């Protein structure tokens, strides 16, 4: 499951959804709004998504992880809109029979989501200005 959410991410509900009888290992990742980035003090973020394509690309990533690793369940949700310090921007969780697959699949999902899913972050700085982030790396 992959979704873009305008509402706060329901971490407890998503974790509950990973439970399965054969799931001996559960690994969850939370990305939260930090109070700094690259040396500048940050007091909030806005995320924008090309929702239709973001959900399609996110679902593709989840299916890739499912085919590469021996997992039970995978969920990932990315927030859009205005976020405050400490808010959860992205959450990914994986359950599996064994921990290596759970760690590897969770890492794969979050790495690929950050590299490929059309979502953009606008940082709001304590000084009052803000800017869209467009990392230098070549698009995949």
């Amino acid at each position, binding site marked *: 499951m992959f979704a873009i959410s305008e509402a706060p991410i329901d971490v407890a509900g998503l974790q509950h959804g990973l439970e399965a009888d054969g799931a001996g290992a559960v690994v969850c990742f939370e*990305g939260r709004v930090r109070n700094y980035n690259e040396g500048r003090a940050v007091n909030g973020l806005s995320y924008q998504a*090309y929702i239709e*394509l973001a959900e399609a690309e996110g679902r593709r990533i989840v299916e890739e992880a499912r085919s590469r690793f021996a997992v039970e369940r995978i969920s990932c949700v990315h927030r859009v809109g205005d976020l405050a310090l400490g808010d959860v921007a992205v959450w990914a969780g994986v359950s599996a029979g064994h921990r290596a697959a759970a760690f590897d699949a969770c890492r794969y999902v979050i790495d690929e989501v950050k590299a490929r899913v*059309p979502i953009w972050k606008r940082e709001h700085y304590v000084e009052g200005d803000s800017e869209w982030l*467009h990392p230098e790396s070549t*698009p995949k």
Partner: protein
Amino acid sequence: MNYRLLYFASLCDAAGCAEEQVASGARDVSALYAELAARHGFTFTPDRLRVAVNGAFTDWNHRLVENDEVVFVPPVSGG
């Protein structure tokens, strides 16, 4: 031909709108981007962008047809 353009993040700021209808002589996405970059002052070179037509990623040689929805996808920064 007529195309529908959606703009995101800094491309939206540069275009001054989130979407627009464009009448253009461009027949592929490369030509369309060159035309729009000139009009709106987009500074991204094509190697830093991906392109999507009708909600799916595609390549820069993609031939356009009437009423295609075209998105130039700037470098992403989710997470």
